[in-house]
């Protein structure tokens, strides 16, 4: 009873709370990092060095008036933020945070579920999230959100192909779709897969930026052309849902990248025994540390690079990344057979 009901429920609660808190502080971190890059201080007023800013933001969003445009498609308008957020959160069900640990005499695996089709589950659930964007734009019954949502969904569908192709080459490397299995196969190989698949890693990172609508691919939210983006008409908590979904998706992309390419919870260079002293750091700490580094890179890129033009974005996706990703799959397959 405890094993099949209480522990999984506890894990779900812990992961959800951690993700939502992580998202809140990711927003603060983003503002801070961009401020530092631009030689500013960032939020400083709420708490020491603005440490309580996320709480103030959350409170503000909770208390704001929730406006529905008069000619909006009411049901779809209400459903869209939910459809955005839920897939971003349920993906965490298959992310492995570490290997099994013993707690109070029982063995607790540090993942909610290890399913045979883990990686495919992540891809397919994430593909449902597109509906949130499209429907938000459609149901607002307003020009700019509609244009933005068309851009967003075209971008997402295009880059999804390239990203999924890189995942195929990673599946070829690991020989399994289970997220735990992929990390285990990296432990057996004694090698993070990023060193074996640098091309796939690069395509995944670029595609990941595009799929989360982050700079330099944040065209759906280009303020100068589109007022705000697909969520222009939203306010209050519904707007916050889109915000939460975007940042939760950033964490998802980072977590999947860490699992596939950076050895998940493994320490650096798991094949080198001389570095065994690094094992004093708990496994989940390694995992979170790697995610943190990834998120910093996301923010760094946003602070550094200007936005792409729409035709450049589409050209990069279809004419460079997709052929490259397919070629990478073919080469990986051939090498797998030959070696």
């Amino acid at each position, binding site marked *: 009873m405890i094993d099949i009901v209480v522990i999984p429920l506890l894990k779900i609660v812990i992961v959800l709370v951690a993700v939502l808190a992580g998202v809140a502080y990711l927003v603060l971190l983003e503002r801070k990092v961009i401020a530092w890059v631009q030689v500013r201080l960032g939020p400083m007023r709420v708490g020491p060095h603005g440490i309580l800013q996320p709480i103030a933001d959350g409170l503000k969003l909770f208390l704001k008036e929730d406006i529905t445009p008069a000619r909006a498609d009411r049901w779809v308008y209400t459903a869209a933020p939910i459809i955005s957020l839920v897939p971003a959160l349920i993906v965490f069900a298959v992310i492995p945070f570490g290997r099994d640990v013993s707690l109070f005499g029982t063995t607790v695996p540090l993942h909610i579920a290890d399913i045979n089709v883990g990686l495919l589950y992540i891809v397919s659930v994430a593909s449902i999230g597109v509906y949130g964007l499209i429907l938000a734009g459609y149901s607002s019954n307003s020009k700019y959100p509609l244009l933005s949502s068309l851009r967003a969904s075209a971008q997402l*569908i295009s880059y999804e192909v390239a990203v999924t192709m890189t995942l195929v080459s990673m599946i070829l490397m690991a020989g399994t779709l289970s997220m735990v299995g992929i990390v285990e196969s990296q432990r057996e190989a004694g090698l993070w897969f990023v060193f074996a698949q640098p091309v796939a890693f690069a395509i995944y990172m670029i595609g990941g930026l595009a799929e989360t609508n982050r700079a330099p691919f944040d065209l759906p939210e280009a303020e100068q052309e589109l007022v705000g983006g697909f969520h222009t008409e939203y306010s209050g908590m519904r707007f916050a849902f889109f915000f939460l979904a975007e940042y939760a998706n950033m964490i998802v992309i980072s977590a999947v990248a860490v699992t596939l390419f950076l050895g998940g919870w493994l320490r650096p260079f798991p094949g080198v025994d001389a570095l065994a002293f690094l094992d004093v750091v708990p496994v989940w700490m390694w995992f979170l540390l790697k995610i943190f580094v990834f998120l910093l890179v996301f923010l760094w890129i946003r602070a550094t690079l200007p936005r792409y033009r729409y035709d450049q974005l589409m050209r990069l996706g279809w004419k460079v990344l997709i052929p490259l990703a397919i070629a990478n799959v073919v080469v990986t397959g051939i090498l797998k057979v030959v070696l």
Partner: protein
Amino acid sequence: MGEAIAFYSLAAFILGFAVLVITARNTVHSVLFLVVNFLFVAALYVMLHAEFMAVIQVFVYAGGIVVLYLFVVMLVNLKRPPEVHADPRRRGRLGLVVSGLLLAQLVAIAAYSTTQAAAGPASRALAPSPPVSGNVEQVGWLLYTHYLVPFEVASMLLLVAMIGAIILAKREL
């Protein structure tokens, strides 16, 4: 018992949303009901321990193809039905014929499978059982051995459709 309850409630949801798909006045709503319908079908696959099929159902149909449907429906003005379909009696007769054919097919399949089951498992032309374990591995093994020809034919069909679409969209190549 629990399985039966799960199956019948899932089937009820699938049928309910299927009815909503064809009765919804707003085409976008209709497409959305179709997505929900697909998700429930995926749940049915999970019940059959076909996890791979379930995930592919969500990925390809709910997450891929219907997104394109939604694009078309949103961008094309579907407010007024074309004149050809305006005659309700003709539509009704056509619907009756099509659903009659479908019913006949379903009855034929049900009759065939019950007589086959009565004849014993040996008489059925089954695919060989794959030497690998795991859902994905088994599907892959069967696709690339026993079902290789249908698999390749299906992919050729898709390729032809793709080339056709490109030629239709791009008059001068």
